[in-house]
């Protein structure tokens, strides 16, 4: 009962199916043109990848479902899924795929596409920012430990300029600058 007496639409009881018009026919090809995506279509939905995954159990969309969604063209749903970012990148799924689909690599491809559209967790952008600013992910903080072991105090050979220079002009640079 609504107290305001406002007229409401019919209650939303049906689960709306995914309409064909929401499917992006080009998505499959888009992924296939990315590194290690060629084998995508070979998937026959056996779900070995999902049973191989140590964490898929807590995922709403399972790895094999993500792959099938890519094939059917559910671009939006795949790229906005939190699951692709929860991938451990442990490659267990990819290793066991009976049809040679490079599942983990394909999730990397998806993450790149998602990042391009700014659908990326802040924490990852923050890491990118750190990398771009400091030129490395980890900084020596306890140089006395290194000295104790007769090691040079700084990270040997590492050039922070190189990272800054290279990544400044790529998507990392854009994401970091653009922020969110």
């Amino acid at each position, binding site marked *: 009962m609504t107290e305001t007496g406002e007229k409401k639409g019919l209650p939303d009881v049906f689960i709306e199916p*995914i309409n*064909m018009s929401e499917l992006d026919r080009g998505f499959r090809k888009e992924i296939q043109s990315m590194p290690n995506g060629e084998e995508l*279509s070979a998937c*026959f939905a056996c779900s070995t990848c999902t049973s191989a995954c140590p964490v898929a159990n807590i995922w709403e969309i399972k790895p094999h*479902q993500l792959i*099938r969604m890519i094939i*059917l063209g559910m671009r939006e749903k795949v790229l906005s899924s939190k699951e692709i970012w929860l991938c451990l990148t442990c490659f267990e799924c990819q290793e066991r795929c009976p*049809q040679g689909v490079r599942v983990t690599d394909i999730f990397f491809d998806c993450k790149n596409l998602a990042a391009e559209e700014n659908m990326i967790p802040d924490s990852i952008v923050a890491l990118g920012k750190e990398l771009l600013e400091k030129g490395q992910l980890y900084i020596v903080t306890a140089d006395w430990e290194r000295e104790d072991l007769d090691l040079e105090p700084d990270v040997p050979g590492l050039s922070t300029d190189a990272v800054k220079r290279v990544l400044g002009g790529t998507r990392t640079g854009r994401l970091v600058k653009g922020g969110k």
Partner: protein
Amino acid sequence: MPKKKDEHRIGVFICSCGTNIGGVIDVRKLARDFKDYPGVTFTTSNMFTCSKDGQDKIAEMIKEKDLTGVVIGACTPKLHEQLFREILEENDLNPFRLAQANLREHDTWVHGDDPEVAYKVAYDLVAGAIERAKTLEDIGFEEYPVDKSVLVIGAGIAGIQSALDLADKGIKVCLVEKYTSIGGYMARLEKTFPTLDCSMCILSPKLSAVERHKNIEILSYSEVIEVERDYGNFNVRVKKKPRYVSIEDCINCGACERNCPVTGRAEWNLGLGDRKAIYKPFPQAVPGVFFLDKDSCTHWTDGCTICAEKCPRDAISYDVEIEEIEIKVGAIIAATGFVEMDIEELSEYGGGKFTNVLTAGQYGRLLSLVGPTEGKILLPPSFEQSPKRIAYINCAGSRDENHRPWCCNFGCMYTLRHAEMTHRLYGDDIDQWIIYHELRAGGKEYEQFYRRVRESGVRFVRGFPSEMIEEKDGSISFSVFDQGTGSLLRLNFDMVVLTMAIDPSPGTAHLAHMLGVDRSEGGFMKELHPKLEPVNTKSRGVFIAGACQSPKDIPASVADGKAAASAAASHVLKGKVRVQMDKAVVDETLCIGCGLCEKVCPFDAISMTVRDDERQLAEVSSILCTGCGKCQVVCPIGAIKRKHFTTEQIEAEVLGLISAHRKREQSAKTSGGVSS
């Protein structure tokens, strides 16, 4: 011990059958317990009576003890009775002097949990068999000649293969085909999986080989209407329907077809598009002449004679009558094939109602270069526009308790082939979806073909579609829950292709009845044994090949055709058939000629014939009699007997069984203990 004349000398052999019998009852004890049974000369038990050791023991004892009967307590006679009979025969004891007690199926498998009961039952069964053995008689056999010719019914790929193989062996073949041309379903296909070879390129050399072969006579547009068994042979009546075009005179100029004013539905294209009333179904048809379809021709209603007038050779004549011919053959191969289930049964998919819902067979005709669209995928009924989106629905009606519970065996591959061919023709211009629920690609190179189709970009959805709706623009919409993505999809297609369930050809039931062949689920013809005799039937001399037995793809049909030819050849080349005389016999001194037996015989094996003394008595055809025993039951005075299962023999067995049981009960009462 003094030996009486005519005394029974029966050997009893109890089999342990590994643990099947021996694991439940003590077979040694059972053998021992019959040592002193009246009429028994020898008893033993062994591990496998059917093994060489067991066989040798039987042979040895028949000789040594001069046995008059052999009782074997083992498995069902279905398994090894023939083997045991041969041992008897090899050792000069008539093979019918064998009585087998089924201790496995009838006892230890049933009473495995109660060895005590099992033992009692075993004892009674063996006692019954011994009593039966005492009443058994010698039974001989008779031989009948077999003609060196074969009738092949149905000229699809299986029948054609059979005909060619037989003809090459010098056997005369009569090839009967219901349609106007031979070739069957394969002639309708553009390409075959998994190699995508051109179907007609493989088939048409065979068609012309059949046409030219001196040992093959083709009876096209003909039907078998009567089959009568004449001892070793078959007398077959074939109805030759008139094609109104003389095969000899027609020169294939096509003038008749060009000028014919009438159109009809193109059967060859499974109803897609039209044809004239006089036509040739496809260019490579054999016989390669025109054909006039009486049902659509208006000659008989308005007297049109245009085609006859236009024919330069006077090859067309309207007053041809149905002709019936009679042929005699030594064997018959039925290869009558299959049809797609009637699409109208699938109302949930708009079958027969929605213009853009086709069967896979029809779709195959669209892909054919000589089909209604010359190989282009166009939307019916105008055939002008190509669809943008096609869905193939696998298992339409198959594996469905409401329609056809069986698997069609080739639909998955058939659909994959269509998708692959369409992809080759149209690439990404046609978006193809396959709705399936299990993909069965279990043949050589099939799995690899399946992978190629996946890689070509066809989308696979695992699930069954909902009811279909025809939109205003003629497109078809339905929902399907895709197990692959775990999501419910609402899809819309310009064309939906149903991979239909498969039925045996119309008329299969009638033909099977005429041939005396059983049918299995769905009305397909039934083989004698699915493993060892896939092409033999219970009717001796009748063989089956191809999809009339169960839905089959081309390689399987060809293999079948060859196997049936091989079996039929072995049958007719021997030149004779041997019939064991364990059939019904009439005691003419008792028979009163009442005719009851004739009425009940399901195999038409009994007829009433007049004897020299003008009495009308029953006579049994031993080749038709299957020994079912119905006549014996109905005969009011016991004049007809099914040899080897006479009333006396059956009674003896039953009485032996009961008395063994009674005796044991008796002794149990008096001794108060449990006896064997």
